[in-house]
């Protein structure tokens, strides 16, 4: 299993989530975060924003679905301008459903 952490534009969250639901991956966790990237924030005129609001979407998928899910996220979250965000993928060894206590996704 892989954990996907996608940092996306807050305004794109709804679109990404509904697209994932349509592709058969409705389960996810989201949280608001603040961050900056290569451009060290954003300068608009005289005002410099050091940290920009993003939404972190976290989901765990089977290895075989990884490429599909990442592609859905990329298709929907991409605008082509700086600040579209990043996707990080990490390994998950085991997952449990608390309700049943079963060791499966």
């Amino acid at each position, binding site marked *: 299993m892989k*954990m996907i952490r996608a940092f996306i534009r807050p305004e794109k969250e709804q679109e990404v989530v509904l697209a994932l639901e349509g592709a058969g991956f409705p*389960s996810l966790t989201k949280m608001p975060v603040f961050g900056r990237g290569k451009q060290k924030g954003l300068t608009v005129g005289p005002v410099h924003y050091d940290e920009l609001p993003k939404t972190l979407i976290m989901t765990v998928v089977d290895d075989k679905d990884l490429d599909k899910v990442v592609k859905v996220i990329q298709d929907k979250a991409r605008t082509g301008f700086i600040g579209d965000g990043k996707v990080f993928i990490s390994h998950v060894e085991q997952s449990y459903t*608390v309700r049943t206590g079963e060791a499966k996704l």
Partner: protein
Amino acid sequence: MKEITAIIRRDKLPETKKALDELGYPSLTIQSVDGRGKQKGALCAEMDSEMPESFCTAVKLRPTPSAYALEHTLPKVALYVPKRMLTIIVPDDVVATVVKSLIKVNQTGKRGDGKIFVSPVDGALRLRTGEKNGEAIA
């Protein structure tokens, strides 16, 4: 070292902390998150263990304007359930014990009990002393 990420009900947090204390692994990070599972967040009685079954039926029989709007407005709205996310870093040999205890405390048998994920951690460092890996989390 392993990272245990547990997404649990909000009202189970005090009990969970107590259970972890008793196991001897009290260190944890807590975050307020919103989530959805297989049911796409559109839960009623299952959403909260405190919510009575009759409430769900009442909502279905007499939909409120907002409930009606959620169902009939386009574009569709994604629904979420508020949860708490715990991150616990523990040595390899106690992962099974901690997971078992987390399941025992948080299990209500209703949908929305949450998920637990176990993933590997490559290193750790205690900033104050500079201790690394095993000693850093001891």
